[in-house]
């Protein structure tokens, strides 16, 4: 068989059912091998869309996502998706065609040093230089993507290797076993815990990546320790738990931020002290000791020194800490009182639509198995604040890289990752939506049941908010009153669509969207002055939140 055939056979052997990609000269042998191969290939309309679809697939399923592109421009278009996956530790494998080995380094047509480009935005990358190594490289790529702290891996395959005769020797990937955490340190961790009067769990994306939601919830149930989550940690502890205080950080809940500032022990679970979480680092939970639990030793002491740390699998670390006895009733009461005091206020006595209220209603109407993806900006923060999730696999948000254009293609990927009965909703903004709008073509082609809620403030809202607050209302290049007619745009792709502008339309419109048979775009006009609150201003401590002005 040809190298290209080996690749396709390997993917099938590996259990891959769907791949996302875009053809071109240097990857044509692979597209030839795909033809009538039985492996589902989804033609996205931009390689960035394909990379994000792979990310969406991976995040909504927990499996490795796969995308495919040609050399040169095809490969460079993948880069943003790889970078997003890298920042959020998402396991994807990107396969790119490369010009034939003989002309690499001659500035051949559509030649680009993709291996060089990949160094900063992948966990690892390969260029296949020996046809007999192809099978082994593929196995390693999948193993690396999903082992330890997951991440994206790129495999660049020159065209001559795709065409070369190879022997079919297929060995599928495996997850490396995770080193046991240090049992001697466990004693110290327990000692630290049992001394705490005001402990707080700060849960990040690592919990979901380790599939340790159950262990984390058992831990907080057993110990009664209050908890906050990061943007990527959302869903790992449902908001309905009595001492779950919601998201912390720049747009976190007031309760989460105030309680974290007061705590005397911060139990960091699969989180990394991102600046959007900590605000001014020196002031973040300044009086707290730190117990850091993570799979990646490089995160320990990177930004905040840990008093005790345990490195390993959260699935085994958390249960080892369950039996600590604590007397923290006073602290629990304090946290839950603050939580009650600071519930979201959905009172909006005006006609125009209040997006937080709409999203909260949408959340109530969706089943627990629905997936919501979003783009970046104010609407993203409103999703994080006002929608409730019971699994991190149900809330797909570009956290580390904050990439506009993430929402629509990741929803495509999620659509393939989940059974038809799980609703998939994209919440987008009028700015972000246009960044990968071409993927409406993929929805049309594949007749995908994806619901789109387009929150339209005719602004690059989050940037506008900062201009209002920190740049003297100088609204430089953030006004989008010349947006296209989104309903007409949707109809060009055979997508049912409707615009709403007033609050009393919300209920029926949401129902109509949820009950519609196929794809649907709900275009929601909102007031451009609506801002995201609370807000920790840049450089401030999380204790100094600005509230509605």
């Amino acid at each position, binding site marked *: 068989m040809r190298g290209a055939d080996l690749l396709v056979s390997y993917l099938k052997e590996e259990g891959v059912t769907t791949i996302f990609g875009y053809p071109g000269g240097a990857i044509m042998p692979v597209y030839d091998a795909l033809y009538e191969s039985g492996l589902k290939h989804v033609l996205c309309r931009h390689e960035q869309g394909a990379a994000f679809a792979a990310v969406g697939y991976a995040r909504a399923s927990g499996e490795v996502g796969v995308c495919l592109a040609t050399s040169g421009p095809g490969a460079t278009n993948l880069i943003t998706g790889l970078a997003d996956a890298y920042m959020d530790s998402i396991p994807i494998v990107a396969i790119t065609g490369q010009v034939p080995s003989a002309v690499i380094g001659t500035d051949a047509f559509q030649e680009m040093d993709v291996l*060089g480009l990949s*160094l*900063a935005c992948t*966990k690892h990358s390969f*260029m296949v230089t020996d046809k007999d190594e192809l099978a082994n490289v593929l196995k390693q790529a999948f193993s690396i993507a999903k082992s330890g702290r997951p991440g994206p891996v790129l495999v660049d395959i020159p065209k001559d290797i795709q065409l070369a005769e190879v022997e079919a020797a297929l060995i599928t990937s495996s997850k490396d076993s995770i080193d046991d955490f240090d049992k001697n340190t466990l004693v110290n961790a327990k000692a630290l815990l049992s001394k705490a009067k005001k402990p707080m769990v700060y849960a990040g994306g690592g919990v979901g990546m380790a599939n340790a939601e159950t262990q984390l919830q058992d831990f907080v149930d057993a110990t009664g320790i209050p908890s906050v989550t990061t943007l990527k940690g959302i869903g790992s502890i449902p908001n309905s738990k009595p001492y779950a205080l919601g998201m912390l950080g720049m747009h976190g809940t007031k309760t989460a931020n105030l309680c974290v500032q007061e705590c005397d022990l911060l139990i960091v679970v699969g989180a990394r002290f991102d600046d959007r979480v900590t605000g001014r680092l020196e002031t973040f939970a300044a009086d707290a000791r730190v117990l850091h639990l993570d799979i990646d030793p*490089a995160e320990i002491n*990177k930004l905040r020194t840990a008093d005790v740390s345990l490195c390993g699998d959260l699935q085994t670390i958390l249960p080892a800490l369950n039996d600590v006895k604590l007397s923290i009733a006073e602290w629990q009461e304090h946290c839950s009182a603050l939580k009650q005091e600071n519930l979201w206020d959905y009172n909006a006595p005006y006609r125009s639509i209040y997006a937080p209220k709409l999203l909260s209603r949408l959340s109530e109407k969706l089943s627990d198995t629905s997936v919501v993806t979003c783009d970046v900006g104010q609407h993203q923060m409103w999703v994080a604040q006002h929608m409730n999730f019971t699994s991190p696999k149900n809330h797909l948000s570009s956290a580390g890289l904050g990439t506009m254009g993430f929402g629509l293609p990741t929803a495509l990927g999620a659509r393939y990752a989940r059974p038809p009965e799980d609703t998939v909703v994209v919440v987008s903004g009028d700015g972000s939506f246009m960044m990968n709008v071409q993927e409406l073509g993929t929805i049309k082609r594949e007749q995908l049941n994806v619901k789109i809620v387009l929150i339209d403030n005719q602004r690059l809202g989050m940037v506008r908010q900062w201009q209002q607050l920190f740049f003297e209302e100088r609204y430089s290049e953030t006004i989008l009153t010349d947006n296209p007619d989104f309903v007409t745009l949707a109809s060009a792709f055979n997508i049912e669509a409707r615009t709403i502008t007033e609050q009393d339309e919300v209920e029926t419109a949401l129902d109509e969207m949820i009950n519609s048979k196929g794809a649907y775009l709900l275009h929601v006009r909102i007031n451009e002055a609506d801002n995201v609150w609370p807000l920790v201003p840049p450089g401030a401590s999380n204790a100094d939140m600005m509230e509605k002005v």
Partner: protein
Amino acid sequence: MSLPQQQLQIDVNKSPEVLERILRVVRHRGFKVELLNWKDETSQLLLTVSSERSINLLTSQLIKLFDVTNVIELNDVAQSKSA
């Protein structure tokens, strides 16, 4: 004023891009290369770097690289990678 220097011994799996990979991490994480000695036959890189940052911030990132098998802070304890 000169910055604190540290010497590292980095053992690698041979691959054409491994040096680039390592040097990119060194620069990106805020370290300057003062001296570099690469022995292809032993797949070993001796590197003297300087920075205001603590050397652990670099070694913990280098050891994560797939092609790096071992990082030793010379005159210090080994940070070896379990296979």
